């Protein structure tokens, strides 16, 4: 059997988690939908090679956020999911904790659906895949529709050589809430310039794509930063 959403036919779902018991538990739900489930039990290896492998052999993915507790993976699930989404691959991120971290927020544009493990069901899996496929063809829900808006950067710190955390305010979304968002400095040369300016005590304003209809902080994304 297969789940057909628009032109996407989802029939082989890869289950990614560093714990075999969790992978086996994901299987219940996928098999109950009459889809084929395959647990990824080998270490994931290099991200690009892994993504290519997923594309070649699977049509959907359910992936846990925390993958680095053991040698199973050198990266977390947010990286896997965002990479696959960018290649128009239906994905679901499972997270065990409440609250989205700053690093996930930086990629949230490409992580449309985060579900807590206990909420995973046939219905949520279907909903998540439908959401992904809809977005691939430009159909966004009001909560996920991106708008170009002003982002005010109030402070910044360099976490590692490649990672910067900005504390920002999005006046058009909620002018009183400070938001931490983590970005990879290599992805946009603007990030290092902003870090330097903010470090000198300036408050900077840039434009970015933000889903202004997001109902809470965990669903908010900030992408495509421009001056």
């Amino acid at each position, binding site marked *: 059997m297969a789940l057909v959403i628009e032109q996407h036919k989802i029939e082989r779902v890869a289950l990614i988690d560093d714990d075999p018991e969790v992978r086996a*538990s994901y299987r219940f*739900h996928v098999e*109950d939908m009459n889809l084929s489930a395959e647990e990824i039990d080998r270490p994931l290896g290099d991200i690009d090679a892994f993504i290519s492998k997923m594309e070649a052999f699977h049509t959907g993915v359910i992936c846990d956020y925390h993958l680095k507790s053991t040698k199973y993976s050198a990266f977390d699930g947010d990286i896997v999911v965002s990479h696959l989404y960018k290649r128009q691959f239906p994905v679901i991120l499972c997270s065990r904790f409440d609250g989205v971290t700053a690093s996930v927020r930086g990629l949230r544009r490409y992580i449309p659906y985060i579900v807590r*493990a206990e909420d995973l069901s046939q219905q949520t899996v279907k909903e998540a895949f439908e959401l992904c496929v809809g977005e691939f063809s430009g159909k966004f829900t009001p909560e996920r529709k991106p708008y170009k808006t002003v982002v005010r950067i109030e402070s910044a710190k360099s976490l590692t050589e490649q990672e910067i955390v900005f504390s920002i305010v999005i006046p058009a979304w909620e002018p009183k809430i400070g938001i931490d968002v983590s970005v990879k400095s290599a992805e946009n040369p603007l990030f290092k310039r902003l870090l330097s300016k903010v470090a000198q005590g300036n408050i900077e304003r840039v434009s970015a794509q933000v889903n202004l209809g997001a109902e809470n902080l965990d669903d908010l994304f900030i992408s495509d930063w421009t001056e």
Partner: protein
Amino acid sequence: MSDVHFRFSPQILARLGEELNQSVDQSILELVKNSYDADATSCVIELKNTSSKGGEIVLTDDGNGMTASQIRDGWLVLGKSGKSTLKKTKSGRTPAGSKGLGRLAALRLGNKISMLSRPSGSFRYGLDINWRSFDNAATVEEVPLTIKRSAAGPKSKGTQIHLKDLHAPLSSDDVKRLARSLLLLTDPFENKGGFKVELKAPEFADTESLLKTKYFEDADFHLVASVTAKGTASAQLLDWKGEILAEATHNELRQNTTKAYKCPRATFDLWTFLLKGGQFLGGRRLRLSDVRKWLQAFGGVHVYQDGVRVNPYGNPGNDWLQMNLARVRSPEERPGTNTSIGRVSILTSRTRELVQKTDRSGFIEDEQFFELMQFLKDALEWMARWRLQQAERRRRAEREAAPRVAEEHKANIEDVIESAPLRVRSSLKQAFTGYAKSRDKEAAALRKDIQLYRTLATAGITAATFAHESHGNPIKVMGLALSALRSRINSHTTGDVQSKLLAPTNQIAKAQAALSTLSTATLNLVKASKRRVGKVDVHKSIHDLVTLLTPFLNGREASVTVRLANGGAYMHGSEAALESVFANILNNSLNAFRRSGTEKRLIDITSAIAEGVCEVRIADSGPGIKDVGVADVWLPGVTTDPEGTGLGLTIVSDTVRDLGGEVQLLPHGALGGAEVIVRLPLLGG
């Protein structure tokens, strides 16, 4: 028409001169850099009547001077830089000026300019500019300028620039800034001669004498770090005698990576002063206030590119390495711009070069610049790590030595008492014994408190670790399996059988949810972001906490009503601090219900805002405060609960005080039980 070309309105002079460039001191500095590039050994700047409008500035150097063609094709051409940083001047200097825009800014300070230059040979060349003659011209090129040649006298080479009829007066602060900039222009950290700048103004003499008094040798620590052209770094930390305290290899600085720094060759010196009275003066020759004054004037990390200072790094208020921020976050053992002075010397090569921005506001921030900053920050981090390790060792030694020292002091006092006159000896002995006993008692109580805090901290850390583990996979597997089980029961069974299977499944699901909440709550309390100090909303903190604790409150059958004043109640503090206050108060209420077996378990939380203060009242329906004085409940270890720690209200009181507020306890409040009143100062109040 084929013979057309761009032409420039005279307004471009104002755009590029006045508007693009910076302050007066930086503009004049550009003229001084021209003297430096002309291999001058002396440059004298004279200020005449500059405290009011219309004054004059005269700059005279003994450099190579310019011929008519050099003036025409170089000095008068704006935006063109004939200076390559790789091509050195005859005396081996790397050119400091560029583009000619800084020179324009200086020349635009006055309405009229006279320039007289004497190159080698028997002629000198003069040029007069009157900016007013540009006012009515359509383009810059339309205003004719004439270079006048005249026979030179016996006077030696050099150039004099006379800025007349200044647009604006120079304030005393402008002159002080100019004096500082001139003195720091060429590396004053070492006594290298070759280029002397003199400013004829009293402010200069003061600043110069302050700069001449160097305290480098008295720094408590001297960090010396360098990075080679290949990007390999190393560092040493020296004490005030110049002896090596610690050394770091590239990997240690990089924290275990071998990756090279992709930046130009550079050396970094940072002299750090402890500036603590007792520690600083020990055995050394200077006064603390002198060093403070000196650091205030010249402190910060200055940058020299090929021997010439790059503005604005190290200027007052320019903390480009974020040293003060790091010091605020972790004040112990870290230098700030007021407690240290530093120099970064950058040497340009063919492959590595930092390029300065056109408006002279520092380097273009490209990868090489960030790599250099990373090297400097890594060196600072390494020094901070080493100093923290030393501080920890010192504290341990002090802790171990403290009882022995106390015994020695005690013996000393007893000796002194023995030598006192007989008539007072016995009363002195008695008084001292009483004092010693109370001190011992206090020390014992403090030791007990510390032990209790340590035990609680360990319990907290362990709980958080277990929460991570349990909230991870076992609980997750239970949740996934339960929802699959429920779904299968629903699709494969009907009627009675379905109800019978669902009933125990739902029970397990409920228990799983409770376990999940327990670990979520624990993890939420220890989130690092909650300890960040900033603007926090008291109301939001209360709402979030009550939501977080709801499963526990339900478990104890306690009902909480929250009635808060309208709007946010913003104050300066951390979420963790507010959570400590309210969580401990709620915990006390829950424990009171449990101990007394209260039937109707109510907690009422209200708030009111008046005169910049948020007053939060937390009242419960428990038994209230009995068997212990109200004043004593804040003391550590005081409790009527045999299983309690007696620390909850101590933490409440300490935290509220740290937040600048106050706390009060009513033994029997609005609901009959205890009522805690917390008053917190709001921002803007």
